[in-house]
């Protein structure tokens, strides 16, 4: 299988293609809204009390106006783009379980409601840019995951790789469940400590950063992206014999482990920094995107290395097909 654009919809059934189109629309609109909201948030970052009074007054008027526009743009992001998050969170909560969507949903709510209140009251901090960034980056990770899953479903699946996927994703989900539970508790505790003992104005950004960090996007992507890269490598290198398949599964296992441990290390490094208030919500969102992209890139490296190794003698055959 040759690499094709991840934005195109390959051979898919109608319902799957519809789903893919909606995910692409969510992703694109979230990125568009994110860039706009970041632009409108900029005056809030340059404002400081040492400015000349008339400048400050003018800037405050502009900020007031821009906050309202940010609010207008953020509402559709929350209602449409973040829809999978709400569905996922409520479906699992109704069953009495915590899924990965729960901390994401809480992060969005915790950042959005105080910001909407500040906009209405005309004073205070707004975090619309963090909300929009969080949703856009989260959807990027989800979209890559969806592409990886649909590629596996479309191309013929290798039985041994599928067996590996089933066992590995069960283990990864169990680990992610504990991770999410602990992180949600930590976020609430850190928010409460900041609110009651340290500085009320920092409680909301600390809590938002902690919720953003608790989203195990990279962990959720670790298994599907690796397995689909291995599937693609198996398809690209033609029929494999028994020992080659074993070695491919072994490679996939190693890369999955790297991805899982890498994302755990990222969580362990960033959570204490966020808890002491050193990580702004938007920085947390960017590191979340970077960790997800690192996982996807590592899976892609597996595919490249495998195809290059197998490709040395397969090349004339492939050239003959073109």
């Amino acid at each position: 299988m040759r690499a094709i654009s991840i934005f195109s919809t390959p051979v898919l059934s109608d319902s799957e293609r519809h789903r893919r189109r909606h995910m692409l629309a969510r992703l694109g609109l979230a990125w568009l809204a994110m860039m706009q909201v970041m632009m409108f948030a900029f005056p809030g970052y340059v404002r400081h009390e040492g400015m000349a009074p008339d400048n400050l007054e003018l800037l405050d008027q502009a900020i007031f106006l821009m906050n309202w526009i940010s609010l207008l743009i953020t509402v559709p992001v929350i209602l449409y783009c973040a829809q999978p998050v709400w569905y996922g969170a409520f479906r699992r909560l109704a069953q009495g379980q915590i899924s990965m969507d729960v901390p994401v949903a809480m992060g969005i709510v915790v950042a959005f409601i105080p910001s909407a209140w500040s906009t209405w009251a005309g004073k205070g901090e707004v975090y619309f840019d963090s909300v929009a960034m969080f949703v856009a980056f989260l959807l990027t990770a989800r979209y890559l995951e969806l592409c990886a899953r649909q590629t596996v479903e479309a191309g013929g699946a290798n039985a041994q790789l599928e067996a590996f996927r089933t066992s590995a994703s069960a283990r990864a989900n169990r680990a992610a469940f504990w991770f999410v539970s602990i992180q949600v508790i930590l976020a609430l505790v850190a928010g409460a400590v900041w609110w009651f003992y340290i500085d009320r104005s920092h409680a909301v950004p600390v809590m938002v950063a902690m919720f953003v960090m608790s989203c195990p996007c990279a962990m959720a992507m670790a298994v599907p992206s690796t397995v689909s890269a291995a599937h693609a490598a198996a398809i690209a290198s033609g029929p494999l014999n028994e020992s080659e398949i074993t070695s491919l599964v072994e490679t996939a296992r190693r890369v999955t482990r790297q991805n899982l441990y890498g994302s755990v290390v990222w969580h362990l490094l960033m959570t204490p920094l966020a808890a002491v208030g050193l990580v702004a919500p938007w920085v947390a969102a960017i590191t979340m995107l970077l960790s997800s992209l690192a996982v996807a890139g590592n899976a892609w490296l597996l595919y490249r290395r495998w195809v290059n190794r197998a490709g040395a003698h397969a090349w004339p055959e492939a050239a003959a097909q073109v």
Partner: protein
Amino acid sequence: MTASLFLLLPIALAFVVLIGALFWWAIFAGQFDDARSAGESILMDDDTPLSAPGRGSSPPARDARVPPGD
């Protein structure tokens, strides 16, 4: 200066809405569905002349020589 903001910011918002709506239309009209075959169609062109001698009156299907996708 505030007056110009009242004019420019709604224009910016209108552009965002317009671009978002166009993007939405493009996705659901299928513009992103197949990003490759249009670019390759010039290479996979069917060069056989339509009225070649001995080919009969019915020309071959337009993309008979295009290999199936992956």
